[in-house]
């Protein structure tokens, strides 16, 4: 196959050049330093694909097997690299198939630019073939979106799209481009967007709030830090760790905050929320100062709001002013980018150790260990547990792997027990809880960080929602390690049915296919483990593989995830059994 090679000199856009809208789209991506994009071709985006063919030495297009897979792959790429993920699709069904991933990216603040083809502008609004109002449909789930009907507007729209997606609190944007705009020729000139007058990505820190927060932290007897993804998104890991250590404050994480502080750090007291750890949940209702950093008090974290930390003074470090006082009333709101505000507050913080207070966490951990953790990761009864599989992956990966999870019981177990030594190692669908996220997100993660070991952990339910992306893994030679924890159930729903619906297992049992045969059908090495004694060797073989590897582990059918804060209950009502 012969492709036209474009030299860097030729694509320099300092001077204007007459090119088509579709070529402009590709050139804009190159200007934004995009090297990998995920997508699926179709009628209304074909001119762009034709240009991608020409520019394939500059941009690698990954053909996913479904547009949803493209968005999740773009998300995985963005989450591990901190760059903007890009997904493209055709109009109509191609565009609507992006929506799940866009909604997921919106609630989890993932920077993503989606480009959709649209029918020609003279057909807009006529119910033309493969026409949908994707701008209307995506409005509630995008940070920003727009439709372009003239080629000359393409560079401006895409420059704005990239700036909005990655600045401030990141999020997904969608640019819909009509087919006639793709064909139209115009004088191309690209200028990156650095400012939009109506948009303030990072709010100003209100004068005096840092001092007020520091005073409150220094005076606290039982302070607790709860941190979220904001720490990772603003690359504030170092400043965050310095604060935690100087102030000697126990710190607990939301699911998307995981890995910003190593799991083994002595002041890391575990996960918050519905299936979080016993101590941080219980003690949220005993701390005197609650310091929230880059988190949004999601209902899965707070449980019953009117009984959440009512005794505590609340300090909220936050980039999005709309999150302040949204769910939990704060006493001091420190607006701004966490990296900047944490750095600024550090000199104002007194050194402390809070030993007795920290001991309370250790005491409650012991209780959780005896009642839950021991049986989860060192089981003695028959039937493999999900926890022991995660433990084995920890051992073999030495806590260095990026763990990409789907949604369900396995996700909670993976987040509870995975050891993270490095930041950006926990890639999961938090706010939307999107089953089917894991496998395609792992592809994006591996392509963004080929040097890292990427382990995708899914349940048998979610895995089958995007199982077709095995084809992408095979075609791209993405060396993703795929683990399916198979309990032949939609496990989390079954657990709720067991606990709250009198064990009426309505439509949660799955009769599953031969997963190994399916993986092998995609030319991916595969193994199935049913016994404890086979586990360590199988995980070792998987980790040693230089290529993609599929491992199915048959786990106990009716295993439950504990602790658990029942839906609508207070976090202090967390159950151990």
């Amino acid at each position: 196959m012969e492709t036209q090679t474009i030299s860097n000199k030729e694509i320099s856009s300092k001077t204007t050049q007459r090119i088509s809208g579709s070529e402009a789209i590709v050139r804009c991506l190159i200007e934004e330093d995009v090297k990998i994009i995920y997508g699926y071709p179709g009628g209304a985006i074909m001119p762009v694909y034709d240009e991608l063919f020409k520019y394939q030495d500059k941009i690698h297009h990954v053909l996913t097997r479904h547009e949803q897979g493209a968005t999740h792959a773009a998300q995985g790429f963005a989450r591990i690299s901190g760059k903007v993920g890009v997904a493209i699709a055709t109009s109509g069904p191609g565009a609507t198939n992006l929506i799940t991933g866009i909604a997921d990216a919106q609630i989890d603040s993932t920077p993503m630019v989606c480009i959709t083809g649209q029918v020609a502008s003279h057909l807009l609004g006529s119910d033309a073939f493969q026409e949908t109002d994707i701008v209307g449909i995506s409005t509630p789930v995008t940070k920003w979106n727009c439709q372009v009907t003239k080629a000359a507007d393409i560079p401006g729209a895409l420059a704005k799209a990239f700036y909005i997606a990655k600045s401030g609190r990141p999020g997904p944007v969608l640019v819909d481009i009509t087919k006639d705009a793709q064909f139209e020729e115009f004088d191309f000139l690209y200028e990156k967007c650095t400012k939009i007058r109506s948009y303030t990505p990072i709010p100003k820190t209100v004068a005096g709030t840092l001092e007020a927060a520091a005073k409150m932290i220094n005076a606290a007897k039982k302070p607790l830090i709860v941190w979220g993804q904001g720490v990772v998104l603003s690359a504030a890991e170092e400043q965050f760790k310095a604060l935690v250590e100087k102030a000697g404050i126990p710190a607990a994480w939301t699911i998307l905050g995981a890995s910003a502080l190593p799991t083994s750090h002595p002041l890391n007291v575990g996960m918050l929320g519905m299936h979080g750890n016993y101590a941080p949940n219980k003690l949220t209702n005993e701390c005197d100062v609650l310091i929230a950093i880059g988190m949004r008090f999601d209902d899965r974290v707070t449980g019953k709001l009117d009984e959440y930390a009512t005794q505590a003074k609340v300090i909220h470090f936050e980039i999005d002013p709309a999150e302040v006082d949204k769910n939990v009333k704060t006493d001091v709101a420190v607006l701004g980018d966490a990296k900047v505000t944490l750095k600024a507050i550090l000199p104002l913080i007194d050194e402390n150790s809070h030993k007795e207070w920290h001991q309370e966490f250790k005491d409650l951990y012991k209780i959780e260990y005896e009642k839950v953790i021991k049986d989860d990761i060192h089981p003695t009864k028959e039937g493999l547990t999900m926890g022991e599989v995660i433990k084995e992956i920890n051992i073999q990966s030495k806590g260095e792997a990026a763990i990409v999870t789907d949604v369900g019981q396995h996700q909670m177990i993976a987040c509870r027990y995975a050891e993270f030594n490095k930041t950006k190692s926990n890639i999961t669908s938090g706010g939307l809880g999107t089953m089917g996220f894991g496998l395609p997100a792992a592809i994006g993660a591996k392509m963004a960080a080929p040097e890292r070991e990427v382990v995708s952990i899914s349940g048998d339910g979610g895995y089958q929602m995007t199982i077709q992306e095995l084809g992408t893994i095979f075609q791209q030679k993405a060396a993703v390690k795929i683990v399916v924890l198979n309990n032949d159930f939609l496990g989390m729903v079954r657990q709720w049915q067991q606990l709250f619906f009198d064990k009426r297992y309505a439509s949660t049992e799955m009769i599953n296919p031969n997963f190994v045969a399916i993986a092998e059908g995609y030319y991916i090495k595969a193994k199935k483990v049913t016994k404890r004694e086979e586990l360590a060797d199988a995980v070792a073989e998987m980790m040693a593989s230089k290529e993609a590897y599929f491992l199915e582990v048959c786990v106990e059918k009716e295993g439950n995830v504990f602790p658990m804060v029942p839906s609508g209950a207070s976090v202090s009502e967390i159950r151990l059994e």
Partner: protein
Amino acid sequence: MNTEKQLYTVSIYTENNIGLLNRISAIFQRRHINIESLNISPSEIDGVAKFTIVVNMTEVNVKKIIGQIEKQVEVIKAYFHTLEEIIYQISGLFKIKSELLFEERQIQNIIKESNARIVTVNKEFFVLEKSGRKEEIAELYDELSVYGIMQYTRSGLIAVTKEEMKISALLKKYNN
């Protein structure tokens, strides 16, 4: 903070872009807040549109809504005010059979006393316009409905605040 529901006007200064109405109305829609009235018009600043939205809600919630509105990329600034803090007007149009104007003397008195304005008269109908507070227009409606109204329509509330909004100063800062 006031926890009682009351009428608030939400004034939003925005870039004049397609699709923004959809974005802003969706913020109210997903929280099940009914928009009592809505008006979009050019503002005192070139190229900047002004939304005036009337909603019935608590102060706590209207503050949260303002936060969500200001989060939209193309929104320059949003404010909320109670009805006491603004000067507002609503406009009503009444289409009435022309014969009534001549046969019912009382109608002429109603027009005079209400300070309504005749916009047009022809053989079949005449059109009355009345600007004022909601109650004044409702009162005129009640008086005229006795004689029969062919068509009636009322505008959204438009308002200016008693206090300065400082939007021009803000934009000047953004533009520099």
